[in-house]
């Protein structure tokens, strides 16, 4: 049989099959339609509610039994005396995770709302002093982000309060009784905050500049006071003072000014600025990437640069504030300090090192990309590879754990859980040295960026450069020397070495900056800054920095709170809930990640609402306001 006739025969066969199966399929479909229609009619058509006639009330033994049970339950409920619940459970995720997420979101928005007015105020002051309207516009643009964020902060604050009352009623009641004199001033300050914030924002350009600056100052003072009151509550839980061994209040003032209160105030103040700067930088980055004109790109490039500059400037002294806080924690309780650095939370600081290392690398990378904006930058770019090498080396030292995850045979081969060589890098002598050099190197990146497109024209320029370089080199050598020296001295001496390390780096940063200011006074310009001429990847770096900062805040918030382990108030009020255990770091970082994603979802909402301000009105008319 040929291929053609074979194909024809096959086609005829298929047709016959179709003739047979077609009606069968039709019948099946008809039956299906009838079935679906009848289901709809039976289930969804309106029917009068069934009401049985009074004479036919169910009197079966089952119904009678159920009625008796209900009556018995009601009787028992009435007989049970009222008892205050100690804990209640949140469905699915549990009370701790629920409180954790809400508190973290509240704190992230609060940090943002406190930070933006700080640098908006400083930028406005610069604008007022220099008479440069660009700064005034920039400050105004930053404050646009505030009003929606303020509402979200307050909403999450109320949410947190309700969650505490519902889930931890007894402990919340205790905390409120200790700090009862602080709550009404807190509410009053919140009113002032709202007054200053909205007057500051809506009054832009409506008052004399000094009056407007006064409103900005008031906003910052009130915001900082609110933060300090809230800090008293949470630091009291970590380092309680002013109470007896069984928790009775002896002095509210002592409870407020407990040992970690001021270090947390300073640490949060600085960290909030860094965080706020990074989120504002991310906002500018999003706007840059969406920009359609060179003017918009130039504006948002500048805004992103300022946001990042604020973030990194605040970030550089942050480790010093962190050391102070850690020192106070150790001074309050060695057990608490060692739980933090040597116990259950020690590996958390390796994760922190990864985050901070990434922040330093990303911040430097952004600066180096930014050098491309300036003409005639090539002579300085050759230094970048050395800076990159230094930063990478420090990052590696900082992220080296003291003990290593290893199998039993590997531990035997190493002669212990510490590596015979790398183990020496996992101790504080090495880590302190690494972080100080990291800060110094990033500072040098800033300095190089500052110099792009300029040549010092003062008579003592050469001497100035030599002195700056000598200070830098001497500080680096001194910091490394102290780090190595720490291996050869007793604990009592070694602990104190971090102080001269920190002081020498701070002194170097201040003195080099001071020299630089005079050195580049009246400097000769070699090229203009071309704002907006920066690769788009730089904007993704800004967003990466903001996400990393946010995640870092989430992680460090966890360690600050989790450090108390099974205590609500450390050493005084025991946590007896089902969540009293300390979870694994894997679990904690998952919660932090989910919270960070929620925050960015909400901050995208803030950015979107803020962007509505600049959109044309419905019908194509651009708003005048």
């Amino acid at each position, binding site marked *: 049989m040929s291929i053609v006739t074979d194909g024809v025969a096959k086609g005829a066969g298929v047709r016959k099959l179709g003739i047979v199966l077609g009606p069968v399929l039709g019948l099946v479909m008809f039956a299906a339609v009838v079935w679906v229609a009848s289901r709809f009619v039976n289930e969804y058509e309106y029917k009068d509610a069934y009401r049985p006639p009074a004479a036919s009330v169910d009197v079966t033994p089952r119904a009678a039994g159920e009625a008796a049970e209900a009556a018995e339950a009601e009787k028992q409920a009435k007989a049970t005396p009222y008892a205050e619940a100690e804990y209640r459970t949140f469905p699915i995720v549990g009370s701790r995770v629920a409180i954790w997420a809400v508190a973290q979101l509240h704190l992230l928005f609060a940090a943002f709302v406190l930070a933006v007015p700080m640098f908006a105020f400083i930028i406005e002051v610069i604008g007022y002093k220099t008479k440069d309207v660009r700064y005034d516009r920039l400050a105004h643009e930053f404050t646009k982000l505030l009003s929606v964020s303020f509402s979200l902060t307050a909403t999450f604050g109320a949410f947190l309060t309700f969650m505490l009352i519902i889930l931890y009623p007894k402990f919340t009641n205790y905390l409120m009784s200790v700090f009862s004199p602080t709550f009404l001033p807190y509410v009053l300050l919140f009113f002032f905050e709202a007054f200053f914030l909205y007057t500051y924002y809506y009054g832009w350009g409506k008052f004399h500049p000094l009056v407007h600056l006064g409103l900005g100052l008031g906003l910052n003072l009130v915001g900082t006071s609110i933060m300090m009151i809230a800090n008293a509550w949470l630091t009291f839980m970590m380092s309680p003072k002013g109470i007896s061994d069984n928790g009775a209040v002896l002095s509210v003032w002592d409870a407020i000014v407990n040992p970690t209160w001021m270090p947390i105030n300073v640490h949060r103040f600085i960290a909030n600025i860094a965080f706020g700067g990074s989120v504002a930088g991310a906002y500018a980055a999003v706007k840059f990437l969406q920009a359609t004109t060179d003017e918009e790109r130039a504006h948002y490039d500048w805004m992103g640069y300022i946001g990042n500059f604020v973030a990194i400037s605040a970030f550089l002294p942050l480790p010093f504030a962190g050391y102070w806080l850690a020192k106070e924690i150790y001074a309050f309780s060695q057990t608490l300090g060692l739980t933090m650095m040597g116990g259950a939370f020690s590996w958390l600081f390796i994760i922190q090192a990864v985050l901070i290392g990434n922040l330093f690398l990303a911040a430097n990378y952004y600066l180096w990309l930014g050098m491309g904006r300036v003409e005639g930058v090539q002579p300085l770019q050759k230094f970048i590879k050395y800076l990159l090498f230094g930063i990478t080396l420090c990052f590696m030292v900082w992220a080296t754990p003291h003990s290593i995850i290893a199998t039993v045979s590997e531990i035997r081969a190493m002669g212990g859980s510490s590596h015979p060589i790398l183990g020496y890098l996992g101790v504080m002598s090495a880590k302190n040295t690494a972080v100080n050099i990291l800060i110094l190197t990033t500072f040098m990146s800033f300095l190089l960026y500052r110099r792009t497109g300029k040549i010092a024209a003062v008579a003592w320029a050469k001497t100035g450069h030599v002195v700056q370089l000598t200070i830098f080199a001497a500080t680096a050598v001194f910091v490394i020397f102290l780090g190595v020296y720490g291996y050869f001295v*007793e604990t009592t001496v070694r602990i104190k070495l971090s102080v001269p390390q920190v002081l020498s780096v701070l002194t170097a940063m201040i003195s080099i900056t001071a020299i630089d200011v005079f050195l580049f006074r009246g400097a000769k310009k070699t090229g203009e800054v071309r704002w907006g001429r920066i690769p788009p990847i730089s904007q993704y770096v800004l*967003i990466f920095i903001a996400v*990393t900062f946010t995640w870092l805040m989430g*992680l460090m918030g966890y360690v600050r709170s989790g450090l108390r382990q099974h205590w609500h108030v450390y050493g005084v009020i025991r946590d007896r809930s089902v969540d009293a255990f300390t979870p694994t770091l*894997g679990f904690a970082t998952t919660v932090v990640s989910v919270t960070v994603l929620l925050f960015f979802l909400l901050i995208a909402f803030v950015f979107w609402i803020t962007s509505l301000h600049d959109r044309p009105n419905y019908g194509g008319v651009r708003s005048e306001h």
Partner: protein
Amino acid sequence: MKIPIMLRIAVLVVATTGFYAYVGQMVPQKEVQPPAEIVLKSDLSQAEMAKVGREIMDGKGLCLTCHTIGKTTGPYRFPDLANVDVRAKTRKPGYTDVDYFAESLYEPNAFIVPGFNPGMPTINKPPIGLTDQEILCVIAYLQTLGGTTTVTLQTKHAFNGGPAPGAAAQPPAGAK
């Protein structure tokens, strides 16, 4: 195909967050439970006391968070406990090893080992809050480090109603 900017940003945010969550899974995972209430039988043998003492030091007492046992090279944050019983017998004149251990646990700042900073918490008070019986078990274990256990759950020392250090060795007042 051009990927929308907002999608790129969303992917970056999720990827960055995911990366840090991944780093969090890579470090050792340990769930720390609150210390369990320990019920001690009144007739524990000295060997059993030492065993319980070791468990307390590792858990509820948090001792091994700071102290090491048998670490041969520095740096040391707190004294290593290898052969500590040998040193405890001679550390303070008139003190037995039990007196010295008891003082170290109940009043840790009364004597600081040269070369170290004060920092040991009072062990019978919160947040650690060991009971007198649990502390005796810890002492029983410490005695095994270079010596032999002599304490029992009935042992008295200056901090649980017993005589002050050296008092037992001194002749009674008025005796010649």
